[in-house]
């Protein structure tokens, strides 16, 4: 395997008595497209939220580009309540806020599209550039950062052209059709100049044709921006088509991992999905 970009190590996320993610271990290698799948409520989005700093895990650590960015161990009341493993392995508390994680080089999209509704397409992407801006508030207000601003605008325009949204750049973001909104959310994440792109159900609610387009699109941007992609998805076509490797979660636990072919034939995976009608 190539050098890994993301490593999740013994992560357990427990809400009160409910264990949402149970001792999760996974790795995403540089340049890979890795999928995280599992039935509804398996803890996929929770895992994403732990990785991106939205939740602080109850126990475990997350490494990004060889650096430990998140770490925690059960504390306070949780000490008694804790049901997971490896409780004693971690001593440090590292809890970056999501914005910090993003600035480290990780950007995500959301399961339920979260665009900035009052902004235009262009501004949605431009705002994501803010985290890369170096100007302070004075130089920004008094336009001393003109150069930087101009470069940003140019980059955004380029980016919009790449993702095929340049023609609607001045439309309000919410006026776009659903598929384009998804695309815009990805473009916005790209504007934050990530190394690792996390996509939370990018094809949710899309028809087969849109899904196909999206599959091609993800591959395209991976190559163009030299990205690593980690995604959650229910559309098996998409997953099987583009993933290099797949992790399968059920009830918070990792039940299988491997390349698409292996996963497709894995007994546990089939069991986990049995009875759950997926539209794949």
């Amino acid at each position, binding site marked *: 395997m190539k050098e890994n970009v993301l490593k999740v190590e013994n992560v357990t996320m427990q809400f009160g008595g409910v264990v949402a993610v149970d001792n999760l271990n996974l790795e995403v290698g540089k340049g890979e497209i890795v999928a995280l799948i599992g039935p509804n409520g398996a803890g996929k989005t929770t895992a994403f*939220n732990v990785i991106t700093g939205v939740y602080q895990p109850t126990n475990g650590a997350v490494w990004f580009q060889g650096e430990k960015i998140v770490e925690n161990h059960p504390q306070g009341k949780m000490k008694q309540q804790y049901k997971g493993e490896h409780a004693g392995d971690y001593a440090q508390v590292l809890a970056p806020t999501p914005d910090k994680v993003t600035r480290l080089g990780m950007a995500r999209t959301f399961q339920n599209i979260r665009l900035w509704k009052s902004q235009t397409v262009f501004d949605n992407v431009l705002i994501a550039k803010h985290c890369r801006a170096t100007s302070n508030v004075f130089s920004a207000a008094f336009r001393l950062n003109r150069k930087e601003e101009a470069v940003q605008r140019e980059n955004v325009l380029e980016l919009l052209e790449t993702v095929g949204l340049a023609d609607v750049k001045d439309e309000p973001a919410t006026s776009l059709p659903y598929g384009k909104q998804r695309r815009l959310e990805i473009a916005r994440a790209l504007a934050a100049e990530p190394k690792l792109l996390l996509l939370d159900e990018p094809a949710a609610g899309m028809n087969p044709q849109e899904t196909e387009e999206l599959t091609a699109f993800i591959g395209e941007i991976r190559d163009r921006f030299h990205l690593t992609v980690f995604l959650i998805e229910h559309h098996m076509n998409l997953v099987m088509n583009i993933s290099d490797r797949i992790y399968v979660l059920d009830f918070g636990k990792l039940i299988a991992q491997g390349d698409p072919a292996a996963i497709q034939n894995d007994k546990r995976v089939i069991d986990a999905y049995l009875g759950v009608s997926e539209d794949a």
Partner: protein
Amino acid sequence: MQYAISILLSGVSLGGQYALIAIGYTMVYGILRLINFAHGDVFMVAGLMMVYLTASLPLAASIPLVLVLTVLLGFIIERAAYKPLREAPRMSVMISAIGVSYLLQNLATYVTGGLPKMYPEIPGISNTITIAGVPTKVVTVVTPVLVLVLVLALTQLIHHTKVGMAMRAVAKDFETAQLMGIKINAVISVTFIIGSFLAAVGSVLYFTNYQSIVPLSGALPGLRAFVAAVFGGIGSIPGAVVGAFIIGISESVIKGSSWSIFSDAFTFALLIIILVVKPTGLFGEKVTDKV
């Protein structure tokens, strides 16, 4: 010693009166997530109505009439100023509440001509009695008892009736409750009716103690009662009552000390500390944001 008792007495009675207002705040907030800024002014209007009604009617008729009219006022305010904004952002509703408060105050100024009005004496509770050597009004003793009775009745209503169940459901999850066929608007109206009723009762007790009413009379007790509601954990009725007594007594104690100018500042400082340390108040439920 006498002094300490007198402070405690006035604190307890004040706390009881705040509690009656605070319940209105806390119930409305629990259901609509709205700080009903006009609630304190409804309380003031109830007092004014009493003044004007007793001028022409016997007391036995005017007290029930005041209760009914206040309830009606609360109901109308909700229908006119909050219901149209049900789908609007929370800020709009809050601003509407501020607007209603402004309107009620200005209306009161207009009607009274800006002159302070004297609350009528209510036989029985206006009389002076002596407790442990401290002269005080009967109302001081009646208040906490009445508050307890009303709160018990209210808890019974909320836990053992259909309306109460609907109210709890709406407070828990507005949308789902609606989907389950609960008539949201009816529930909200009931909430406002109960809140206004308690405010009216509170106003009778409060103004019997502090007899002069000006258009701004409701603002400060209203704000303090709201702080009490937050302090106790907004949405929780026992919380509001406990919070109100704590606020009432501490206010009374501070006013009796040499720091009296900071009595309001203290109330708010307490609020801020509570919000920062335990944002959900003493009895509030924890809410987590969903991403």
